[in-house]
C-alpha cells in the first residue's frame, strides 16, 4: 500500500481549436527503489508535468519516461531527491498463475479519493477486448474483476493476497457495476523494460485483420487464424495474402486461434517481430498449403502530433498511415483538422474537425512540420485571404480563410 501513488498530471490538450491545460487524476504504483512508477498511458500521455502524492501525503514531481498507447501503459520516474532518495515499492507477481475466483484488492484514487482500497475476486482472466478502432489493445487478454473500480482508479495496482501486483486497473464497462478490467502484470513488465530502455515501443505491422477460424464454416477444426481482410499497400498485400486465407504458421511456429480469445497471441507475435524482418507465413488456401514471405513494416504512430495555429483558431494533427487509408488518400499527405475555435477565422470559413487540409495557397502539404513553415510564412506575409484545399469524404472543396480583423481594429482605436 505505501507504494500506491495518486498521479496528478497537467495535460496539454488541443480542445476546441486551442491548446489548453487540463488537470486530470489517476493512480499509479511504485515498482522499484529508484522510483519508477507504472500508470496508464491515458493518465500520463500528453502531460507536461506530473505530480504524484505518495502514501505519506507528500507531493513529489515525476518525469514521464515513456508511454505506450497500444497497451495503455506509461512509466514515470519520481524525483526522489525531494524525499531523501528512497521510495517504498511493490513486488510484481506472475499474472499467468492468476486463477479465476482468486481474491484480489484494487488500490488507487477513484474520483480523486486517494488511498482507497477495494476487495473482489478475479472474474475472468482471458477477456478479449481487442479492437484497435476503439483503442483497446489487441495484444493481450484482460483480467476482469468485481473489485470496485471507478474513474480515477486508472493506473493503480490490482494486488493478490500475497501482496504482489498482478495487474494494472485500466478500464470499466460503461453503465455496468462490478465489471473492471486490469492489464496483466506480465504484459506490463515487458513493456516497462522497453519503455525504460527506449522511451517508446517499436512494433511491426503487416496489414492483416485476423478473425477466429470458428467464423468460417468447416475451418473451425483447423489450427490457424483466419484472414478477414488485407490492407491495401501493406506488406501482407505485397506478399500475396488474401481474405479467406488461414494462417497456420508464422515464422516457423504454429498459429492457433479457433476462438477470438486466442487472437491476442498471434497479434502480439506479429507486433513483436523486428521491423523489416522477412518472415515465412504458411497459409491454407482452398485446401492447399502455401508459404509466403512477408517483410514487416513499422507500425505507424497511434496518433499524429498536434499543432496549434492560434491566428486561425485552428489545431491540426499529422496524418498517420491509418488516417490516410481511411480518408482514401493515395499516400500520407496533408494535415487533419483536430479542432476549430468558435468565432475564429477557421471556424468562420466553415472548417470542421476531421477535414484534411491538402494544400495552402496552391502549395501541397506533405507533413506537419512543412505545414508549420507554410503557415508561418503566410502570417509573415500578412496575407488577407488564404486559400485551402480541403477534403472531407469524397469531396474536395475550396476554403478561404480570412485574416482576423480584430488586430487592425485595435490599432485604429489606439491611433485615435
Amino acid at each position, binding site marked *: 500500500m505505501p507504494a500506491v501513488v495518486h498521479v496528478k498530471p497537467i495535460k496539454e490538450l488541443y480542445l476546441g481549436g486551442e491548446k489548453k491545460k487540463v488537470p486530470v487524476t489517476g493512480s499509479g504504483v511504485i515498482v522499484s527503489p529508484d522510483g519508477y512508477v507504472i500508470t496508464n498511458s491515458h493518465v500520463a500521455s500528453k502531460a507536461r508535468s506530473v505530480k504524484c502524492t505518495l502514501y505519506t501525503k507528500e507531493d513529489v514531481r515525476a518525469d514521464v519516461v515513456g508511454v505506450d498507447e497500444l497497451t495503455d501503459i506509461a512509466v514515470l520516474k519520481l524525483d526522489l531527491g525531494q524525499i531523501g532518495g528512497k521510495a517504498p515499492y511493490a513486488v510484481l507477481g506472475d499474472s499467468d498463475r492468476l486463477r479465476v475466483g482468486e481474491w484480489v484488492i484494487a488500490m488507487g484514487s477513484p474520483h480523486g479519493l486517494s488511498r482507497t482500497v477495494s476487495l473482489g475476486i478475479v472474474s475472468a482472466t482471458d477477456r478479449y477486448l481487442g479492437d484497435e478502432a476503439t483503442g483497446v489493445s489487441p495484444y493481450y487478454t484482460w483480467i476482469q474483476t468485481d473489485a470496485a473500480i471507478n*474513474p480515477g*482508479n486508472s493506473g493503480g495496482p490490482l494486488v493478490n493476497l500475497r501482496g504482489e501486483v498482478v495487474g494494472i486497473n485500466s478500464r470499466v464497462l460503461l453503465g455496468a457495476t462490478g465489471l473492471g478490467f486490469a492489464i496483466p502484470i506480465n504484459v506490463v513488465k515487458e513493456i516497462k523494460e522497453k519503455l525504460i530502455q527506449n522511451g517508446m515501443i517499436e512494433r511491426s505491422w503487416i496489414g492483416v485483420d485476423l478473425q477466429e477460424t470458428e467464423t468460417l464454416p*468447416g475451418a473451425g477444426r483447423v489450427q490457424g487464424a483466419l484472414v478477414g481482410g488485407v490492407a491495401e499497400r501493406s506488406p501482407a498485400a505485397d506478399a500475396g495474402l488474401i481474405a479467406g486465407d488461414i494462417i497456420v504458421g508464422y515464422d516457423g511456429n504454429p498459429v492457433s486461434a479457433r476462438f477470438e480469445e486466442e487472437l491476442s497471441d498471434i497479434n502480439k507475435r506479429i507486433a513483436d517481430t523486428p521491423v523489416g524482418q522477412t518472415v515465412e507465413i504458411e497459409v491454407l488456401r482452398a485446401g492447399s498449403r502455401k508459404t509466403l514471405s512477408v517483410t514487416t513494416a513499422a507500425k505507424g504512430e497511434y496518433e499524429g502530433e498536434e499543432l496549434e495555429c492560434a491566428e486561425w483558431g485552428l489545431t491540426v494533427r499529422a496524418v498517420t498511415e491509418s488516417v490516410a487509408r481511411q480518408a482514401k488518400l493515395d499516400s500520407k499527405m496533408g494535415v487533419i483538422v483536430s479542432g476549430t475555435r468558435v468565432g475564429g477565422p477557421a471556424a468562420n470559413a466553415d472548417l470542421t474537425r476531421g477535414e484534411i487540409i491538402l494544400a495552402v495557397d496552391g502549395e501541397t502539404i506533405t507533413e506537419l512540420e512543412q505545414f508549420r513553415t507554410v503557415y508561418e510564412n503566410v502570417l509573415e506575409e500578412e496575407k488577407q485571404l488564404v486559400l485551402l484545399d480541403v477534403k472531407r469524404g469524397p469531396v474536395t472543396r475550396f476554403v478561404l480563410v480570412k485574416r482576423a480583423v480584430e488586430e487592425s481594429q485595435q490599432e485604429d482605436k489606439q491611433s485615435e
Partner: protein
Amino acid sequence: MSKTSTQIGCVGRVAVVVLTALVICLRVPAETGADASTFTPQRTREIFEKFKPALAVVNYSIEYYDPGRQQDVKRDLHCLGVVVDPAGLVMVRGHVSLANVKPFNVRVRLDSGVRYEGTVLEKDKRINVAFVKLVAETGDGSQGDLDLPFVSFATDPSLNVGDEVMVLGILPEVLDFERTFQVRRVASVIETPRRVYVTDLPVPYGMAGGPVVNADGAAVGVIGYDLDPREGGEIYVRSGYPLIYTADLFQHLIDNPPTEQKDRQEAWLGVFTQPLTDDLAEYWGLDKTGGVLVSTVIQNSPAERAGLVRGDIIRMFNGEPVNAKERTDVRDFTRMVRESGVGRTVPITVVRDGEPVQLSMMLEEAPKTAAEAEKYEDEEFGFTVREITADFIIVGDLDPGIKGLVVDRVEAAGWASLSGLLPGDIVKEFGGKQVTSIEELKSILEEIKGDKPKEVAVFIERRGRTGFLRIEPDWDD
C-alpha cells in the same frame, strides 16, 4: 464485434456548468375590435360556409423501417385534405408521401359524411404538397363520376405584409375533426429560393394544408411546411414555421396531376459545387458577379466527359447566366440543370485560370439513388439487400468498380442479424460464392435452402475493412 468499455481516467475538479436557456414566450394578443379586422363576423361566416364543404379528413396508414428497432413499423395517421377538383382530387400536406415512407389504406371522409377510398399520387419534389385521387364507388362496384364541392384558387394571388387572411382546417380527433378556422396576418415574405409568406402567429397542426383565404374571399394558397431533402423535399427550412404556399406554386399540379408512376428523367452533371463568393472572386482577381465553382468532379460523370475540371467556375449554362454567390443560389443552379432535359447538348461557359473556356455537354439522366434501387428481401435469413447505387459509391468514397450488394435492413433477431450483419454492410460473398447482382444472390439462396447447411459464411465490407460473418440458420424453426 465490439465491446464498449471506457477508460477510467478522471478529469479532476472541473466544475460542469450547465447553462439553462430561459425561453420567454411572448404572446401578442390579437386585436379584437371589429373595425380593426377585415374579417367581420358576418364576412367570416360567409367564407367559412363557402369553403367548409370542400374540407376533408384523410385517414391513412404508413409503413416505414425503424433502424433503431430493426423492424418495420406501421402507424395510423390522419390529416386535413382539400378537394381541389370536383372529379375527386384532394390536396394534402406533403408529409403524407415522404421519400422513405409508404402510405396505404387511404380513406377520405368529406364534410357531407360520405367516405371514399383513395390512392396517393407521386409527390412533386419542388413543393411539399401531395395529392390523393379518390376512387368513386357506386352501388354495383363500377367506377362512377364524381361531382364534389371543391376549392378553386385565385391564379394571381397578391399578398402583402400586413394583410389579414383566414386559414381553414379541422380540429383534433377528440373534437370529431370538426371544421374550424383562424385569422392570421402576413408578417414576413421569404424571397429565396421561391416566394413564400410567414404568418404572425403559429397555425395549429390540423390546419397544415388548409386553404388560405384573403380579404376578398378568394382562396390564394395553402398552409405548408418545407421538407428536408432526405424526406423527399427540395429545400429545407428547419424553422418549423408554417408557410403560406400561394397557388402559383401548385396550380399546375392541380391542372395536370402527377401520375402514380414515377416519371423521373432528371439531368445531372456529376460535380460537387460551391458558390463563387465575393471573397473567392477577390482572391482569384475575378469579377464579383458570382458563379458556380466546381470543387470536385465525380469520376465517370457527364462533367468529366465534357472536360470540366476542379476549379472551373461556371458562368453560363445553356445560355443562362449563373451568378451564384450563396448556397441557396447554387440550389437554383442545380434545379436549372435538373430541368434542362435529358439527352440535350448544352453550351457551358467556364472561367479557367482567369480565361473563359467554352464547353459543350451532353445532359444525361441522373443515376438511380439508393431510395430507388432494386431491393430483395429474404424472409428466412431476415435481411434485405439493394443494388449498389452511384450515390452510395460517391458518399462512401468507394471504388467505382466495387461489386456486391448493400444491406438495406436486417430483421431483429433474424438469422442475418444474429450473425452480426448490419445495415450498410456490403455483401461481397455469400456461402463462399461471389455476389454481384440480386439475381445471383437469389439463386445462391435457393441452392442453400435446398442443401440446408448448418453454417453459411458471408464475406462483407464495412467502413473500408473486410471480414467474415457466420450465419447459423435454424432450418427447423
